[in-house]
């Protein structure tokens, strides 16, 4: 069940410059959410109307606490406004939205959980869920330079890090990690920038490893009605029969074999 709700801010802190960690009271949303889904976040300022889609980073069903980790994308942005939220403030959300990672596929398997940059947050709750399914997990995280959330992944698997400048972990991309460390997996779940997803798609398809990736597109409705957020698919999509699936509803998680990147 999707709900539009006004949620109370429980806490917010800045993890590294520009990356914020927001905890919200959102009982109805956490009750329904699964890892890999996202929520639409609305600004208070009435001059900005469109939602900001943000992946769910943590689901605490027992306490009804939703965790979002997001990047402020610039000055005069909606996310800049979110960054000024304090304990006790309110913010409007719509969610949970989209399909989530098929973590039940991970049951008993060896899996890669791959996150690049601001694509890392959704992998955290996915790691927790996959671990609960008994998966054996290699977590591979790609950063520009400064790391965030990496320490929290150690509870769920082996954590490998790549940084663009090599300041931490391996210099290069997540793919450099896989090759250099000679890692292997039965299944891949990933979220990150398009070039990373493209490289992983090629890698996974070459090795015949089932791979699911989370996609990004500009959104308006967030629920599949407006057709703003499409991505190209190999086959005709179920909705419009034209090879343009809706990221917000048919995704954001797709099998790499379904989509054209």
């Amino acid at each position, binding site marked *: 069940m999707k709900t539009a709700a006004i949620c109370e801010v429980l806490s917010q802190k800045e993890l590294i410059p520009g990356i914020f960690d927001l905890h919200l009271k959102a009982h109805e949303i956490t009750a329904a959410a699964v890892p890999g889904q996202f929520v639409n976040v609305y600004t208070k300022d009435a001059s900005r109307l469109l939602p900001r889609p943000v992946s769910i980073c943590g689901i605490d069903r027992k306490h009804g606490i939703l965790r979002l980790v997001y990047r402020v994308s610039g000055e005069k942005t909606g996310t800049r406004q979110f960054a000024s939220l304090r304990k006790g403030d309110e913010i409007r959300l719509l969610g949970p939205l989209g399909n989530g990672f098929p973590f039940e596929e991970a049951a008993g398997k060896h899996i890669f959980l791959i996150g690049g940059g601001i694509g890392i947050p959704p992998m955290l709750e996915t790691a927790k869920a996959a671990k609960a399914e008994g998966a054996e997990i290699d977590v591979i995280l790609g950063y520009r330079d400064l790391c965030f959330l990496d320490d929290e992944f150690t509870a769920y698997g082996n954590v490998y890090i790549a940084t663009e400048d090599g300041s931490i972990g391996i210099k290069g991309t997540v793919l450099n990690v896989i090759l250099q460390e000679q890692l292997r997996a039965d299944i891949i779940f990933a979220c990150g920038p398009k070039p990373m997803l493209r490289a992983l798609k090629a890698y996974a398809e070459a090795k015949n490893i089932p791979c699911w990736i989370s996609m990004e597109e500009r959104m308006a409705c967030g*629920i*599949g*009605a407006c*057709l703003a957020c499409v991505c190209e698919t190999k086959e005709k999509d179920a909705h*419009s029969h034209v090879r*343009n699936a809706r990221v917000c*509803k048919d995704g954001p998680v797709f099998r790499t074999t379904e989509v054209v990147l």
Partner: protein
Amino acid sequence: MNLKVDLAGVSLKNPVMTASGTFGSGEEYSEFVDLSKLGAVVTKGVAPTPWEGNPTPRIAEVYGGMLNAIGLQNPGIEVFCRRDIPFLKQFDTRIVVNVCGHTTEEYCAVVERLADEPVDLLEINISCPNVKEGGIAFGQDPKGIEAITRELKSRAKQPVIMKLSPNVTSIRDCARAAEAGGADGISLINTLTGMKIDVRRRSFVLANKTGGMSGPAIHPIAVRMVYEAAHAVKIPVVGMGGITCAEDALEFILAGATAVSVGTANFINPYVTQEIVEGIETYLREEKIDDIRSLIGAVK
């Protein structure tokens, strides 16, 4: 208290409809809104065959609104009749099918295909700014409007509402042209053509360069055009553009609209259509007005 209005011979339980393209075929929003509470559901534009629409990014946020250049992605009339009409028939609301095409023939094909379907009204989109052929090309020229209206009227079984473009010098002339062509009603406004440039990337934000502007920012322009159109013709007018609350809707009705459509506001608050129906009820009660019809065009 009466909320019922008569739109081109079709009785609506209240004047609140959805704006084409913002509400899909109702399914997605039925999770939030009881569709039976709405005057009508207006569907996304449908063409004779599936259309894939424009490349992404298809939308951009602008001050008080958005630009869209969806480009009328749709599954075509066959899938629509098989899937979307039966879905909507489950609800006690009117079904308005929004029709698009690249050519007069394509519009006609859709209208003819719908002849025996349980559809209440047809809204003809001759004002989409986001497709190369068809769309706005028909809707900016009074002669063109009259011609296509006449063609469609000769084929349509259901009443025909022509959806007009605001990107014109004289909305009065366009409204009169639709009336002259035999339209049973007109609806306006479609989106205003806009553009957004990313000054850091030095490129257009939309893949299509331009897009249609919608949302509260366009409301005053839409109200003015509805007022002008309503005073130019005798056929009923559906008002839309930037409605976010009952008061916004009532402005259109007072300006002369028989019904209204709510678009972009759905994206901000998925419950909004039903809330607007309730807000209009509250207004009538507070203002001690028995019949919403007494408000239509009441401000002159």
